[in-house]
C-alpha cells in the first residue's frame, strides 16, 4: 500500500495539540511507517511553497489545530483544504475557537491598544501598532493581518471531521490515524474520538443531591477526592460536556473545563451550563442568589472557555 500523505498544521494555538501528537510516544514510528509527513511546522522544516506546488487532493489527511486569528491562518487553511482529502478540525481551537476566541469579548482595537500601548511592561512612546506592510531599504516587509474576530476552522473552510479536546488525548489521535489508514471512516461531519454522553456519565465520583450554597475557585478549597466536584461547589462543566477524555482533570481533582465541547444536540454549551448552574443553586430569594453568585467571577469566560467562536452571541459588541 502506498504511504499516506499526512499534514499537521497549527494556526492560532498554543502548540499543545502538536505535543499531544508526539505523546503517542513510540507509536509515532508506526505513524511514520504508514505516512509521509508533508507539513508539520512544529517539528519539521517544510515550506508553504512546497505544499502550494502539490496537486489538489494529494494530502490524504490533514490534522489542523488552532483557530483562525489572522490572514496567514486563513490562507493556509484554504490551501490545506484544497490539497487535503480529509481535513480534520483537531482540538478545541480549530473546532470552536478555544482559548484564543475568548478575545472575542473584545474587538481588534481594544486588543491592540491594551497589548501595544497600555500594558505596564510596554515601552512604545511613538504608539507604533502592527502594520501589514512596512517599506525598508532592503525591500518591503509583510506581516499577516490581525482580524477583528477569532474564527473556528469551519467558519472559514469546510471541515470533514472534528476531534475535540484541549488537547485531544493521544489514544484518540491514534484511533483517527488508524481509521484513515483502514478507510473505515464515519459519516462526514462527525465528531470523532468523543462519546455522545456527558462527562458525568463516565465520571466515577459519588453523586448525590446537587444543592449548592457557595461556589469556590479551585485554589479556595481542598476537595474530597471521592465526591462530585460540582456538589462541592466547583464549577465543573461535566454535565454539559462530551465525555471521552478519560476524566483526566477530574482524576487530578480539577473540575472539567469543557474542552470536549457541547453534547450532541446542544447549540450553546455556555447557555446550557448557565441553565443547569442556575437550577442547582440552593436559594429562594434574589438576595440569596446574589450571595451565591459572588463565587462566579467570570461566567462568560468560564462557561465559554473553549467555545466562544461558535456560541450564539459570538462575542461582545459595543452598543
Amino acid at each position, binding site marked *: 500500500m502506498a504511504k499516506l500523505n499526512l499534514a499537521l498544521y497549527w494556526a492560532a494555538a498554543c502548540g499543545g495539540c502538536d505535543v499531544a501528537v508526539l505523546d503517542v510516544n513510540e507509536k509515532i514510528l508506526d505513524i511514520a511507517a504508514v505516512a509521509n509527513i508533508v507539513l508539520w511546522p512544529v517539528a519539521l522544516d517544510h515550506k508553504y511553497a512546497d505544499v502550494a506546488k502539490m496537486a489538489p487532493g494529494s494530502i490524504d489527511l490533514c490534522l489542523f489545530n488552532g483557530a483562525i486569528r489572522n490572514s496567514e491562518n486563513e490562507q493556509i487553511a484554504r490551501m490545506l483544504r484544497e490539497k487535503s482529502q480529509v481535513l480534520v478540525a483537531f482540538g478545541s481551537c480549530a473546532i470552536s475557537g478555544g482559548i484564543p476566541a475568548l478575545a*472575542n469579548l473584545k474587538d481588534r482595537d481594544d486588543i491592540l491598544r491594551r497589548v501595544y500601548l497600555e500594558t505596564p511592561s510596554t515601552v512604545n512612546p511613538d504608539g507604533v501598532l502592527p502594520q501589514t506592510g512596512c517599506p525598508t531599504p532592503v525591500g518591503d516587509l509583510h506581516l499577516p493581518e490581525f482580524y477583528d*474576530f477569532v474564527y473556528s476552522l469551519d467558519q472559514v473552510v469546510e471541515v470533514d471531521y472534528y476531534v475535540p479536546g484541549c488537547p485531544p488525548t493521544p489514544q484518540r489521535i491514534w484511533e483517527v490515524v488508524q481509521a484513515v489508514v483502514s478507510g473505515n471512516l464515519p459519516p462526514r461531519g462527525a465528531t470523532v474520538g468523543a462519546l455522545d454522553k456527558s462527562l458525568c456519565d463516565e465520571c466515577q465520583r459519588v453523586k448525590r443531591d446537587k444543592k449548592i450554597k457557595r461556589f469556590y475557585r479551585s485554589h479556595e478549597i481542598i476537595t474530597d477526592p471521592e465526591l462530585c466536584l460540582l456538589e462541592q461547589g466547583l464549577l465543573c462543566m461535566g454535565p454539559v460536556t462530551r465525555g471521552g477524555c478519560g476524566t483526566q482533570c477530574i482524576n487530578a481533582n480539577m473540575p472539567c473545563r469543557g474542552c470536549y465541547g457541547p453534547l450532541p444536540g446542544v447549540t450553546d454549551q455556555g447557555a446550557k451550563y448557565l*441553565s443547569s448552574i442556575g437550577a442547582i443553586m440552593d436559594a429562594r430569594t434574589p438576595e440569596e442568589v446574589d450571595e451565591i453568585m459572588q463565587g462566579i467571577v467570570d461566567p462568560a469566560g468560564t462557561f465559554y472557555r473553549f467555545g466562544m467562536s461558535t456560541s*450564539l452571541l459570538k462575542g461582545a459588541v459595543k*452598543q
Partner: protein
Amino acid sequence: MVDFEPKIIGFLCNWCSYAGADLAGVSRLQYPANLRVVRVMCSGRVDPTFVFKALSQGADGVLIAGCHPGDCHYTEGNYNTLKRYPLMMQMLEQFGVERERVRMEWISAAEGTIYADVVREFTETIRQLGPYKRRLVKGRDQVG
C-alpha cells in the same frame, strides 16, 4: 432612530402570564404590538439558549414572564427562573448586552393591566436603547 420599531420576544408561562396577557386582551387594554409572544409551559422552561438565540437572530429585547414565586403550577419551576436570571444578566453584560434589554417579570392571570403596563414600558425602554447590535461574523468567503 425615529422609525425604529423594536422587536421584542416574550416568553410567557402558560398558567399565569399568558393568561394575564389574555386578560389584557379581553379587557381591551391598549398596548404596543412590538412584543411577539411565545407561550411556554413554565418560565423555568426558558433555557438561556432561547434568550441568546432570540438576540442573535434579530430581537432587540426579551421578556421572560412567569407566575409569582410561590404560585408556580409546577411548585418550583419559577424559582429556577429567579435563580438563572441574575447569572444570565451578569453574563450578558460581559457580552455587551445592556441590562434593560432582557427583563424578568412576575405576572399572574389576574394582572392584565400589569401585563399591558409592562409591555408598554418595556417597548419604550427598548425604543430608547435602539436596535441590538449583534456581533456579526462574516461568511466563509469573507473573513477578516
